[in-house]
């Protein structure tokens, strides 16, 4: 791989980052004339002069008293020091602290979702591809149609109704003490497991079928390649052909798919988190939106975009390393 290619890609990623950062800064400001007014809505028992003073204090406190351009440069300057800004919440916590608090809880859901979807999806997909055209394959095809048409949040509601309220096997709402009382003890881990079970299941149904479909298509594509035909012609056993020749090569697109889904891991499933009252990034963003907490919203969005850009970059670079068939520097 040429060095110039890597450098080009990195510079391009930085360029995209700055564009996204700028959009991120200006879009939340589009419809708002005075952020202080949004933050501190007028109250009935207050005279105009008092309100003006309060707004002025608010502006100074959050750095809205300077021109928009100065605010923008301040924001970028802060980012260079890895400072995402200060939240409007009481106590004015740093945005980065809030994200760091919530991120692990979102990762609990999203990482286990990814692992489950991937493991089961790989097995299903391989079986469907191997038994191509038989009932296993058509079952997968029908399931895919159904799973796209059934949104995850609907499955979540059904699960929460049946297992949470009717059978009372799992909690339908997350126990609010779960986060504050977590101390790595066996009991605490058990509580997390029980609370996370329903959200993870409802998220992973679509994921399992998605990865199965991907694996199936990828395995079939490789099965038709000449080297698999050669392996068969050599008289290798079915298992050897499947595991040594087919699966190893079929993994490449799956690896890419996993790499690309990494950026989705930190965003959290907003709707699922809301249904189960799970304290993750999704609910954090909804809270920020409901309280007009711009620094927090901007921080979360920028964080997500940055991870997406990094994931894109890493996948692009590793892919060209992994697969010699892809010529580097080819014009897209």
């Amino acid at each position, binding site marked *: 791989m040429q060095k110039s290619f890597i450098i080009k890609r990195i510079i391009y990623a930085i360029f995209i980052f700055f*564009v996204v950062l700028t959009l991120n800064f200006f879009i939340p400001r589009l419809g708002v004339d005075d952020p202080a007014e949004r933050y501190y809505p007028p109250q009935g028992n207050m005279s105009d002069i008092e309100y003006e003073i309060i707004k002025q204090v608010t502006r100074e406190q959050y750095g809205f008293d300077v021109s928009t351009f100065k605010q923008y440069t301040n924001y970028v300057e802060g980012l260079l020091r890895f400072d995402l800004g200060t939240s409007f919440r009481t106590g004015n916590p740093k945005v980065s602290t809030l994200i760091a608090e919530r991120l692990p809880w979102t990762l609990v859901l999203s990482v286990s979702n990814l692992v489950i979807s991937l493991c089961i999806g790989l097995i299903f997909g391989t079986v469907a591809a191997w038994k191509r055209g038989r009932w296993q394959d058509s079952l997968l095809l029908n399931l895919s149609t159904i799973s796209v048409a059934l949104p995850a*949040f609907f499955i979540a509601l059904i699960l929460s109704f049946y297992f949470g309220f009717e059978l009372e096997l799992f909690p339908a709402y997350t126990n609010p003490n779960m986060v504050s009382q977590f101390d790595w003890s066996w009991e605490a881990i058990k509580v997390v497991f029980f609370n996370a079970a329903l959200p993870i299941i409802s998220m992973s149904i679509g994921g399992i079928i998605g990865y199965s479909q991907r694996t199936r298509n990828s395995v079939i*594509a490789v099965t038709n390649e000449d080297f698999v035909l050669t392996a068969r012609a050599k008289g290798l056993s079915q298992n050897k052909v499947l595991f040594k020749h087919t699966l190893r090569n079929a993994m490449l697109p799956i690896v890419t798919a996993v790499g690309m889904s990494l950026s989705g891991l930190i965003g959290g499933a907003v709707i699922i988190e809301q249904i189960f009252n799970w304290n993750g990034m999704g609910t954090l963003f909804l809270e920020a939106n409901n309280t007009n907490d711009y620094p927090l919203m901007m921080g979360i969005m920028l964080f997500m975009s940055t991870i997406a850009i990094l994931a894109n970059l890493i996948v692009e670079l590793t892919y060209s390393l992994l697969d010699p068939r892809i010529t580097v520097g080819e014009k897209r």
Partner: protein
Amino acid sequence: MKVLKKVLRKILNSLIGIGLFIGKIWKHKKGKIGLILVALLAFVAIFAPLIAPFDPYDVTERAAKGLSPSWEHLLGTTINTGQDIFSMLIYGTRVSLLVGLVTGIAIAFLGAILGIIAGYVGGMADNLIMRIVDIMLVIPTLPLTIVITNLFGKSYFIIVFIFVIFGWTGLARVIRSLVLVLKNSNYVKASELAGGSRWHIMTKHILPGVSHLLIMNTALTCAGIMVAEAGLSFLGLGDPTAISWGKMLAEAQSGGALLFGHWWWIIAPGIGIFIAVFAFMRIGLVMEEILNPRMKASSGIFKLFKTLNNTYIQEVFDGMNEEVLTTKEGEIS
């Protein structure tokens, strides 16, 4: 008069074309069910006031709160307001179909125009469009949607707008790669040599070449958009005065359907979403099989998953992989 005749003939021709195409889908054994369902949904949406036994907006029925399904109230009533759930379900069809169709068609237009320009004109235009695509793909869609609806008010107009802004990127990229292939075909080369203008080539030669992809994609996009719309409505980002399936689910959750065991209140809107999405997907997949017989039905779902996942490189590489897949399958069958 002459112009009018010409326009009329064109409209008639395209109507006949659409009719023939629908006939083809009808003959396909999988397509029949999709067509029937879509026709049913359209009928229900248009004649909603005649079909619905009660006024779904009526929240004054204090005596009829939280009823179980009966012959009078087929799906019971809501717990806190006493609205008839069956009537709400019927009115919800309107939002779902309207948002899905309008967005699907708008995306098809925008994606086709930008994809063809990027692919055929190339150079600066191509660069610019593809850079915009790159940027769109790393912006988190749902958070931005939440921010924008918070700023500009909650309405389906805004939701459709956001869907179109974010939805055209995938289609434009697919169209662009197809146009790059068509660009080197003999008939385009011949037209160029004969002195055909860019506009002429793009509308008369390139557009018909990508039309099959466009039509199929529109049906699949409609299906995807309907799921997304239900999600946004569920979060309360839709028009607060309209009745939609997503909002019904949210009301069921907050109104205590889970707590009081009113499962029909949750199942009903879910089945609505399922039927609508399923019907459009079926039609899309059948269209794909008719227009591009080399492709097996499964790849269409594969594609839908891709558009839902909405990431750049994944699509490019999957596209490569899929090209291998389709040609290989074509050779075999």
